[in-house]
């Protein structure tokens, strides 16, 4: 009975993409969905095994070949190479299942729990009241006359609007962002680090992703053995690999040490660097701290080693610090790269090129939809800086509402202000809940035989290692997909849990993982973890039993 179910499930699973090795597509093998009025299900160019699913592309219905100017043959090959697992095939499948449930279909579960993306509000986290008050005041200044808004919110809104053309959030700002806000960010950084910050080195961005891509864009040049190599951690947040693919740069992997809480090992950096030099020109090293998907919070010593390495090997450092407020482990502390660099003395501080990134999407605010962010860039060549500003100017400016949100984050209510109490309470509540859930997740997962979960020191995810029986590995390979993708698809189909396979982030060969967020409410998280446990145990049983 179970085997039959499995076979039936295959044809659905066959639609999934082998995540980490991009398939090269040939049009004869690719199933194409007929254009329809209904919701389309995008599959990222995959092998289809079921002939029942073969479709015909719309232009060929009458038998004549309809030439298009934009086809898979003429499409930008860099675009083809891009993969982004966080919103990839597993999520598409999850949405399909949700639709099916909405339309009255039956599944072994009543809802899909989406733990695939770091979207706090979508999972029920509440916005910070003060932040939304300021944004509302900026959006509709008539509210300045309303007694229901506190003075400290109004004061900040007025200030932001004063920095806007025509006193309106609807004006373009300077491409680097509103000057007041850049200054507020600089002040925030100074306060956080005790290190001077020049507001002219601050650039507001459309989420941190935008800033990261912009800097990478500047860095990519050369050909063949002089082509820019970009060092990224494995596992990584797949924006980096996607950007590298899109820009046709060379990805240089350095492996984080799973047995050591995903710490960065300087010897591994050297190894990766030396190996890379043979075929490219490594120019930049990217770090995510606290880490995504791994959640590790790097020690100060480790950060120093990285900076020293960058100094010696002349690498541009990109420090993705969007989770700087998400630190849970009591023995861990966030150290900004900038601060550590400063503490290493002027020889380092005045020379190492460093871009640090922050965002409104994470932390305790979770304002993903506002697309707010900034980067601080130090020691950039002045002529290159001019080019950077020029590049930013083509896209005019980051969204003003996001800039306003960022301003509130760096300029929150102070103890002597009316909104402080509520603000502080809300912030503590959010961070407290996250810390609890981080611990809960680690504990429950570690109690499952065949799952090993490193401590979730920070960020918003757990990235447990899962044991996948050899038979399952074989089956996955036969289906043309990664073993952890098979696992995650089955988990989705049988339990309605959506997580992202580790192959989407990168992992050592022969190891398998998945990334889940710790964002669902505590009750829902317990349900989720219970289901993961049940699923894992039955999965192990099933594939150990198979002859």
């Amino acid at each position, binding site marked *: 009975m179970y085997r039959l179910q499995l076979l039936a499930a295959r044809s659905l699973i066959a639609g999934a993409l082998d995540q980490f090795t991009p398939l090269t597509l040939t*049009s004869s093998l690719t199933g194409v969905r*007929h*254009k329809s009025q209904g919701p*389309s299900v*995008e599959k*990222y*160019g995959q092998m289809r095994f079921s002939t029942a699913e073969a479709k015909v592309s719309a*232009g060929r219905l009458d038998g004549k070949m*309809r*030439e298009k*100017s*934009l*086809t*898979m043959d*003429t*499409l*930008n090959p860099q*675009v083809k190479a*891009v993969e*982004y697992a966080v*919103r990839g095939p597993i999520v598409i499948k999850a949405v399909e299942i949700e639709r099916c449930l909405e339309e009255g279909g039956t599944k072994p579960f009543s809802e899909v729990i989406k733990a695939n*993306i770091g979207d706090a*509000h*979508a*999972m029920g*986290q509440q916005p910070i009241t003060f932040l*939304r008050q300021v*944004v*509302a005041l900026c*959006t*509709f200044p008539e509210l300045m006359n*309303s007694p229901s808004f506190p003075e400290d919110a109004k004061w900040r809104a007025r200030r932001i609007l004063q920095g806007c053309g*025509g006193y*309106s*959030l*609807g004006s*373009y*700002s300077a491409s680097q962002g509103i000057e007041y806000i850049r200054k507020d960010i600089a002040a925030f950084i100074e306060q956080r680090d005790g290190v001077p910050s020049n507001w002219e080195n601050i650039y507001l961005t*459309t*989420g941190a*992703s935008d800033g990261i891509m912009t800097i990478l864009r500047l860095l990519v040049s050369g050909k063949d053995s002089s082509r820019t190599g970009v060092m990224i951690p494995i596992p990584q947040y797949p924006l980096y690999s*996607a950007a590298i693919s*899109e820009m046709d740069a060379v990805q240089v992997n350095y492996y984080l040490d799973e047995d050591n809480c995903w710490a960065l090992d300087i010897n591994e950096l050297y190894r990766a660097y030396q190996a890379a030099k043979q075929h490219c020109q490594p120019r930049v090293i990217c770090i995510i701290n606290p880490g995504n998907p791994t959640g590790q919070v790097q020690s100060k010593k480790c950060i120093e080693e990285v900076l020293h390495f960058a100094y010696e090997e002349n690498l541009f450092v990109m420090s993705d610090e969007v989770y700087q407020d998400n630190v849970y482990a009591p023995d861990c502390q966030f150290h900004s790269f900038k601060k550590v660099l400063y503490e290493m003395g002027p020889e380092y501080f005045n020379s190492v090129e460093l871009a640090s990134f922050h965002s409104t999407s994470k932390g305790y605010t*979770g304002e*993903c*939809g*506002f*697309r707010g962010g900034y980067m601080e860039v130090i020691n950039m060549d002045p002529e290159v800086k*001019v080019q950077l*500003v*020029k*590049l930013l100017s*083509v*896209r*005019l*400016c980051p*969204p*003003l*509402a*996001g800039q306003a949100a960022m301003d509130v984050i760096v300029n929150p209510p102070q103890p002597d202000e009316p909104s402080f109490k509520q603000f502080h309470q809300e912030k503590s509540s959010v961070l407290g809940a996250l810390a609890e859930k981080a611990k809960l997740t680690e504990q429950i997962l570690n109690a499952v035989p065949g799952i090993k979960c490193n401590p979730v020191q920070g960020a918003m995810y757990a990235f447990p290692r899962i044991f996948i029986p050899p038979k399952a590995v074989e089956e996955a390979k036969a289906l043309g997909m990664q073993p952890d993708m098979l696992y995650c698809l089955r988990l989705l189909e049988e339990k309605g849990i959506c997580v992202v396979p580790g192959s989407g982030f990168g992992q050592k060969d022969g190891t398998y993982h998945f990334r889940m967020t710790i964002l669902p409410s505590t009750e829902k998280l317990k349900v989720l973890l219970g289901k993961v446990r049940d699923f894992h145990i039955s999965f192990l049983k099933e594939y150990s039993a198979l002859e």
Partner: protein
Amino acid sequence: MGQKPITFFRQVLALCSYPDLLEDSKFPEDAKSRARRILQACGGGSLGAYSTSQGIEIIRQDVARYIERRDGGIPCDPDNIYLSIGASDAIVTMLKLLVSGEGMSRTGVMISIPQYPLYSAALAELGAVQISYYLEEDNCWSLDINELRRALQEAKKHCSPRALCIINPGNPTGQVQSRQCIEDVIRFAATENLFLMSDEVYQDNVYADGCKFHSFKKVLFEMGPEYSEKVELASFHSTSKCYMGECGFRGGYMEVVNLDPEVKVQLTKLVSVRLCPPVPGQALLDVVVNPPQPDEPSYDTFIKERTETLATLAEKANMTQEILNQVPGIKCNPVQGAMYSFPRIHLPPKAILEAKVESACTQFNLISVLFMDISKGEKGQSPDMFYCMKLLEETGICLVPGSGFGQRDGTYHFRMTILPSKEKLKIVLAKIKEFHQHFTDQYS
């Protein structure tokens, strides 16, 4: 420049941003109902959740309905709508898809000269080949098919032309293309197998009598299935222009028609890496395509504000053209639409010489880097850059030299907006007049 936002839009946005306001009796019901509907479609009922990468589904449905209404009922599939970070984002995304090949097979993209320099910048960044086709200044900046053909034939010798971009109404030129012209372009694209990109962000900014906005989509479908089932078209719109002027919200969308289904999958994948367009901008777009109806409380105020804004722009368009045309040495085509005038300025030979001698590139500053003559890529200052710098230094008026947009060799222009208030605009135009006369005298 002082234009007021549309009250209703800001009310809905405020309600979405801070839903406590849904209890505030000062907000009208129609604003509240829209806000509730938008929030219901957001993860966790919050503007702070990521949306799907293509944009919130009900908003795409609303956009599709708007397009259907605008185009006389021609069907629009919401799945062909992609919300974007302003129109610029979608334009760059499409161009990104189109660029491939090497050497002779490298993608060529046809763009109008003069053009909005996003296009030339994107093509430069993507390493695509820019194929310039000149608009007819002597014919109100209209598009001449023969010129398209000429440019294409020329280009085929060194690249693989794959796309044709049009801005209608035009930027910087303001011309509103005739229906006949649009048909000609579509026919041309069909014959030459070109992907059409139609930048229609100024579609509500049409001022001249006898001019009317025709969407490329509408004309395409009215030309029958031979064209409507074949020609690949991407049309772009934005919340930044028209009567909304909400540039800072970075709202926009594109509609793709006849996109290869496999390429569409790739497009969806590509936009997923940036997660989603700003949700406030998406919410704003929703209200733009779904404004107050006659039977709703906010209707009167809304219509009044919209009418006033558009009427004022029309007045200013006319005024600008009239005043500039009175200046000897300045000739300004009618500002049929959009938000700019792009007058031709006569520069005395002595001034041209001085400009070339004075090299802006010796002082490596941002302005010279931004405004190097895109049609020439030469060192040294463009004469109209020289003119505009002098204008700025002497009058404090900031305009953009025509060389930043492209123009025929030996001609000079500047682009100014018609956005300052009427009073201020009069002052600006008077100062330009005075400056031009003085400049001409000085360099004669």
